[in-house]
């Protein structure tokens, strides 16, 4: 009896000692399919790391960005792992808000990360975040409608071909729009598309002296082309459409083509989410013959704020969630088609993945074509693809996005929208000290 009591006492004491040593790390993340899946699979991590407990904070992308920025800038220390884009990583790393990820473990194959993605989340050769999934942009189109229009998608389509095909595929009576593009205002919404599009038209946001370039003919060509095309072949109310709205329209068979993030390909290929899953073709982002295919490159990454008191445990989690082992875990539980795309070369070398995901090749081609160190054909002082990697871009991009969205809605002319964008950009860049 006494021995039993002693044994139970020892067990209780051990449990208390273990609880006292268990560290809880708080992870801030966005609500998308890949992140929700990761939360479901964390038993694997806690089984391997019983001394680390996980707490999740899931928020809408813009709220998360604002919330995490406030906490990191004020050194609040509320989060140990944060989900941020490749837009924030270099800016925050320069501010010393992030810890360099140098404790990811010996078996974490850093060289396996796609070079274009790795470049966007490194500063001075150090990795400040680990990519969870990556994306570029490409054309997703209805093969049956393209055939019906008597056209064949070229290997490297031009914008001229896209416009011609969109107009031919449009059938208003059958509620089919030749093309669906983002129109909702926001730096991550319509300006992602329009910045990438402008890159392919030879435009740039700024010249080498940070002078805004909206008064140049390349921007006029881009915006006029976009507005005319959407008027002739786009859906009604396109100025309110973002990624989700276009995903819905395409999935319901109401778009002939959609040019957007490569991550949409897996959703459109899923018969549960798309009624046209078996009729989709993919092609590289269009250009105008100058060789620039938009330079759209985005990754969601896990980073550790410098204010975290649990940096080592946090890095252990980041290592697990972005490792090759995690990709294999997802594949074993939910199939290869659900593996987080766009981060590791090994995934695209996997025969199983290539067999399961018809979009694997086009996605890799789109990501390889992106070069965020040279966004425009013109020499520019900034990096970034569908965004400009400076802190002022969030505010300025949204302001310009509102002006361009108004032009699409017919509330202002293209010339007025461009003039407004130029004025806003000059004012902001002067205020921020870029223009002396």
């Amino acid at each position, binding site marked *: 009896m006494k021995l039993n009591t002693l044994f139970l006492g020892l067990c209780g004491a051990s449990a208390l000692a273990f609880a006292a040593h268990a560290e809880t790390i*708080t992870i*801030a993340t*966005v*609500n*998308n*399919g890949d992140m*929700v899946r990761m*939360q479901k699979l964390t038993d694997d991590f806690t089984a391997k790391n019983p001394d680390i407990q996980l*707490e*999740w*904070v*899931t*928020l*809408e*992308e813009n*709220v998360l960005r*604002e*919330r995490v920025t*406030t*906490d990191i800038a*004020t*050194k*609040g*220390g*509320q*989060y140990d792992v944060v989900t941020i884009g490749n837009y924030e990583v270099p800016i925050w790393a320069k501010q010393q808000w992030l810890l360099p990820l140098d404790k990811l473990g010996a078996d974490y194959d850093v060289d396996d990360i796609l070079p274009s993605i790795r470049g966007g989340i490194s500063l001075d050769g150090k990795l400040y975040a680990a990519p969870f999934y990556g994306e570029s942009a490409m054309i997703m189109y209805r093969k049956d409608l393209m055939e019906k229009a008597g056209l064949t998608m070229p290997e490297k389509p031009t914008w001229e071909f896209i416009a011609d095909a969109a107009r031919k595929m449009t059938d208003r009576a059958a509620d089919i729009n030749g093309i669906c593009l983002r129109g909702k205002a926001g730096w*991550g919404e319509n300006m992602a598309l329009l910045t990438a599009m402008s890159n392919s038209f030879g435009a740039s946001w700024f010249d080498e002296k940070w002078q805004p370039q909206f008064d140049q003919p390349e921007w006029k060509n881009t915006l006029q082309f976009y507005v005319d095309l959407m008027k002739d072949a786009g859906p009604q109310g396109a100025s309110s459409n*973002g*990624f*989700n709205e276009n*995903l*819905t329209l395409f*999935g*319901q068979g109401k778009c002939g083509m959609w040019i957007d*993030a490569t*991550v*949409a390909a897996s*959703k459109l290929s899923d018969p*549960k*989410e798309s009624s046209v899953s078996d009729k989709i073709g993919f092609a590289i982002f269009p250009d105008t013959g100058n060789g620039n295919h938009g330079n759209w490159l985005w990754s969601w990454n896990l980073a550790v704020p410098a204010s975290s008191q649990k940096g080592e445990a946090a890095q252990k989690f980041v290592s697990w969630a972005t490792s090759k082992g995690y990709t294999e875990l997802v594949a074993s539980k939910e199939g290869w088609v659900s593996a987080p795309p766009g981060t590791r070369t090994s995934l695209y070398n996997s025969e199983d993945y290539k067999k399961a995901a018809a979009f694997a090749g086009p996605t890799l081609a789109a990501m390889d074509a992106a070069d965020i160190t040279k966004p425009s054909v013109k020499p520019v002082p900034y990096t970034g693809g569908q965004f400009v990697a400076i802190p002022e871009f969030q505010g300025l991009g949204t302001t310009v996005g509102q002006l361009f969205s108004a032009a699409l809605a017919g509330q202002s002319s293209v010339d007025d929208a461009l003039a407004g964008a130029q004025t806003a950009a000059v004012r902001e860049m002067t205020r921020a000290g870029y223009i002396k």
Partner: protein
Amino acid sequence: MARAVSTNRKIGFTVAAWVVALLIFFPILYTIITSFKSETEAIAGFSLIPSGTLESYAEVQAQSNYFKFFLNSVIIAVGSTILALVVAVPAAWSMAFSPTKRTKDILMWMLSTKMMPAVAVLVPIYLIFRDTNLLDTRIGLTVMLMLINLPIVVWMLYTYFREIPGEILEAARMDGATLWGEIVYVLTPMAVPGIASTMLLNIILAWNEAFWTIRLTTTNAAPLTAFIASFSSPQGLFWAKLSAASTLAIAPILIMGWFSQRQLVRGLTFGAVK
């Protein structure tokens, strides 16, 4: 004839009231309907007939612990309301029954603080919370919500107290009532409808407050507003899940509002018609 016109007008007003009420309630009704649809049904277009699936509720519960958020909402909303009443009843009493020439200015100033955009003071408040270790605590959020709703509570109570004749309080004083006795045994029972409606309104305001409750919490003190926010997604289908989360979040306050509507209306119209 006059009777017929009067009846017609009555019917007209009734129909108009129903139309306005339905218009106001429709977004909530459609949220509830959408929560019983599948994600593909939810995006398929306008429809008032759901398939009746409960898959969104199941997914919402699997993804988050609703009851943890619910408990935080109850503690924060009720706590901040009680705290606000403790501060506001004496404040409103002194303003209503012992006014000075600055009373109106003070009331206006208190109300004007509600006109300031909350985001303007986000960083200072965040720093204060950080330095006092109040980030992600129920106490911190209770105090914060008490402070932001206090101007409305004081204003409402002041309006109700003004309707109570000062002579009654004078009579109580002449009968030897102390200040405490005057407030507790004379004023409070007479102002119960007003205090009750103020309390209910404050609970509703605190329950629905989203700016501070999302920004000052992470995991421990996050209420239902944070629960809803976690189901909005920039990529992928989420309308049905978001609607299910919203329905679960508003259900308690809707039920409370339904049962207490008589008190709410009586309190809100108190003194409106003399």
